[in-house]
C-alpha cells in the first residue's frame, strides 16, 4: 500500500468522515455547516488570545496523549490517563499551596511531584499486571474512579482551603506559577515542555535500548520474551512512565493554568487523549499535530455554540466518530493481518 492511500485509509480518512458526519448533524439540526465550521475555526484561531487558548487545550491533551502513546507502543492499553492526570495535578496542588520558593525551583519540584504521583498511579496498574496478570485495561480504567474519588475527598476534606468558596486547595503562591509565554492569556511555558517531551519520547523509542525493547514487546511479546527482554520489569516500567507523563501534564495544568487544584481539572482530557494518540498514529511528533487539531475542537466548540448556535456536543460527535472509525480500522487491520497468507 502506498503512503498516500495509507494516510487516507487511516487518520485523515477518519477525520474526513467525522467532519462529514458532523456537517450532516448540523444540517439535520437546521444549522448551516459552513457557518458552524467557520465559527469553530474563527473561535479557535481568530486572534492571538484565541490561538493561545487553543494552545492551552493542545497542551492539556498533549501530555496524556504522549503518555498513552508510550503505553500503546509497548502493547499496554493504558486508558487511565484521566486518573493519572488528576493525581499528578493533585500532588502539585497539595504541595504547591505551601511551597514558597523561587519559580524555577518550584516548577521543578511541583512538576517532578506530579510526574512521580502519576507514575505511581500508572505503575500500580503495571505492578498488578506484571505480578498478578491483572488486565491493564480494567485496572487503569478502575484507577480513574479511585483517583476521582480520592481527589474529591481530599479537596472537600483535609486539603480544602478555608478561604476558598468552592471545594479546592489553597491557591499557589505567585512564585510557583509557571511563566506565561503570551501575556494576559493562560498560555504558559508548559506547551514548550510538552513539545520537548514529544521529541524526547521519539528519541527514546527509536534510539534507546529501552525504546527498542518496548516496541518489541508491543509488536511481538513472545519474540521479545525469548530474546532477552525482562517482561515484568518492562510492564511496570512502561505503565509507570506512561502515568508519569500524564501526571506531569496534570501538574502543568495546576501550576500553569488553574493555580489551585480542584476536581474540575480535566473535562476528560485523559479520554480524548486516546483519540489524539491514535490519530497521531502513535508517533510522538504526529501526536503533537493531532493534539493541535483536537485543541481547535476543544477551544472552538464554545465559540461555535455561541455564534452559530451549534451545541458544543457536536464536537463530541466528531471526536467520538474519529475514535470509533480508528478503533474499527485497527481491529479490521489486525484481523486481516492475522489471517493466513
Amino acid at each position, binding site marked *: 500500500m502506498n503512503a498516500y492511500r495509507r494516510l487516507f485509509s487511516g487518520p485523515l480518512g477518519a477525520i474526513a468522515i467525522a467532519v462529514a458526519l458532523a456537517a450532516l448533524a448540523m444540517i439535520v439540526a437546521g444549522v448551516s455547516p459552513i457557518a458552524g465550521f467557520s465559527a469553530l475555526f474563527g473561535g479557535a484561531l481568530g486572534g492571538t488570545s484565541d490561538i493561545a487558548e487553543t494552545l492551552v487545550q493542545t497542551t492539556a491533551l498533549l501530555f496524556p496523549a504522549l503518555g498513552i502513546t508510550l503505553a500503546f507502543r509497548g502493547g499496554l492499553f493504558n486508558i487511565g490517563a484521566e486518573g493519572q492526570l488528576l493525581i499528578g495535578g493533585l500532588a502539585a496542588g497539595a504541595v504547591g499551596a505551601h511551597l514558597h520558593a523561587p519559580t524555577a525551583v518550584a516548577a521543578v519540584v511541583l512538576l517532578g511531584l506530579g510526574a512521580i504521583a502519576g507514575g505511581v498511579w500508572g505503575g500500580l496498574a503495571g505492578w498488578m499486571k506484571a505480578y498478578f496478570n491483572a488486565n491493564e485495561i480494567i485496572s487503569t480504567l478502575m484507577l480513574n474512579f479511585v483517583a476521582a474519588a480520592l481527589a474529591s475527598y481530599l479537596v472537600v476534606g483535609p486539603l480544602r482551603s478555608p478561604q476558598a468558596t468552592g471545594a479546592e486547595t489553597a491557591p499557589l503562591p505567585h512564585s510557583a506559577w509557571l511563566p506565561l509565554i503570551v501575556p494576559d492569556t493562560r498560555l504558559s511555558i508548559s506547551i514548550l515542555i510538552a513539545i520537548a517531551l514529544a521529541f524526547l519520547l521519539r528519541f527514546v523509542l527509536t*534510539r*534507546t535500548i529501552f525504546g*527498542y525493547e518496548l516496541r518489541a514487546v508491543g*509488536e*511481538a511479546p*513472545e519474540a521479545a520474551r*525469548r530474546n532477552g527482554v525482562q517482561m515484568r520489569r518492562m510492564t511496570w516500567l512502561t505503565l509507570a512512565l506512561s502515568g508519569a507523563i500524564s501526571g506531569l501534564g496534570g501538574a502543568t495544568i495546576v501550576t500553569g493554568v488553574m493555580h489551585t487544584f480542584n476536581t474540575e481539572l480535566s473535562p476528560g482530557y485523559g479520554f480524548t487523549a486516546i483519540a489524539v494518540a491514535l490519530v497521531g498514529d502513535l508517533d510522538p511528533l504526529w501526536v503533537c499535530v493531532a493534539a493541535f487539531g483536537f485543541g481547535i475542537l476543544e477551544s472552538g466548540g464554545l465559540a461555535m455554540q455561541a455564534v452559530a448556535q451549534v451545541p458544543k456536543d457536536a464536537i463530541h460527535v466528531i471526536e467520538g466518530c474519529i475514535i470509533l472509525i480508528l478503533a474499527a480500522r485497527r481491529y479490521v487491520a489486525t484481523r486481516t493481518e492475522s489471517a*493466513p497468507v
Partner: protein
Amino acid sequence: MGLVHQHFELVGRLRVWQNIMLGREPRKGWHVDANAARVRVAELARRNGLPIDPDAYVDELAIGIQQRVELLRELEREPSVLLLDEPTAALAPAEIDAFFGTIVQLAARGTAVLVVTHKLQEVINYSKRVTVMRHGKIVAHFETAKTSVDEIARAMVGGNLPDVAARAATAPSPCFVADGLFAGESETAIAGISFAVRSGEIVGIAGVEGNGQTTLADAVAGMIPYRGTIHIAGDVGIIPQDRNKEALVMNWSIVDNALLGRQHTSRVRHGLLLDRSVARADAQVIVDRLDVRCATLDVAVKTLSGGNQQKLVVGRSLFGEPRFVLAYNPTRGIDVGAAALVQSRLIEARNGGAAVLLISFELDEILAVADRILVMYRGAIVGEFERANVDRATIGRLMAGSQ
C-alpha cells in the same frame, strides 16, 4: 474444485458438522436441519474412511483431526479437482500415511489431486507426476516412477546440493550439561532427562512430535521453570521452533530483527543508547553470510519468504559465534536450498568449536547432521547412538515406543 489450505480455515467454535456443511446446510423450513446434516457428515466420513465425531467442537480437536475436517468439507462438494497446500505440515508421521492413503483412494476414484509440498519423500511415495517450482517459475516436470529424490532436489535448488562439510573431531570438554531435568505437565512433560553436549559436536534429539521436545527446548532456553540442573559454559544462540511468534517481529525491518536478542551486548549498546550503525553493519553481515534474499535491509521481514526469514533467524543466532547453540526444527517448512544452507551453517558452527543441540522431528535431518543421536520418547531419553553405528530401524522402533 476444492482447496485445503496449509493454514486451516475452520470456525473453531462451531461443531464439526457445522463446519463441513457451512453455507450448504440442509434446510427444514427456516431452520437448519441438524439431524440431516449429521447423517450426511457421518455418511461422508464413512465413505471416505475418515472417521470423525460430527458433534465435536473443532477447536477441541487435535491438529490432525482438524485437517480431516477441512478435507471432508472439501470432499462434501465432490470436487473434480482437489488442491492440497502443504497438507502434512502439521501432521505426525503416522497421520501422514493415513492421510495419503485416503488421498490415493480418492485419486483412484477419478479425482484429480494436486499437492503442493516441500517434503520430497511424500512426492516419491504417493504422486504420479512431479512439477518443480523455483522462484515462482516452473523449472522441471518428472514422472515419479522415473525419477529420484536426488534429481528432484537438484531441480529445486538449481544445480547440485551443497556438500555437507567434513566432520571435525570433537573436543572432550562438555559445554552443556543437563542433569535430572524435570519440567512441563502431563503428556508433554519431561522426566529425569540427563545428557551432555561437548564443544565441537552436534547432538541430535530424534523423536516424534509431542514427546516433550518443546518442553525440553523451553527449559534449556530458560523459558519455563524446571527441576534439576542445566549448566552451560559460555554464551548461547537459540533457533526457536516458531520463527513467526518466537523469533521475529514481523512488522520490523531486517536491521531491527537482526538485532533482537543481542540488544544488551556491548557491541551495540552504549549505556542507554543503541548503536544503529553497528546494528545495520551486523545485519548486512548476517544477510551476506546466510544469503538472505531481500531488496534492502529496511524491508519488513513479513515480506520475506519463510526460508529467508529462517535464514535471518539462524544468522542472528549464530552471530558472535556462541559456544552453545540450541536449534529446534531449524529447517521446518522451508525449501531444500535454504534447509541445506541452514544445516551447513550449523556444521560450520560445530567445526568452529560450538556445542550444538539439534532437536528435530525430521529423522533424516538428524541422521545427516548429528554426530551423536539421542532418541526421545514420552519425555525421556530412550536410546543413544554414535554416528558411526546408527541403525535407522532401531531408532525408528525407539521413536515409536517399542524396545
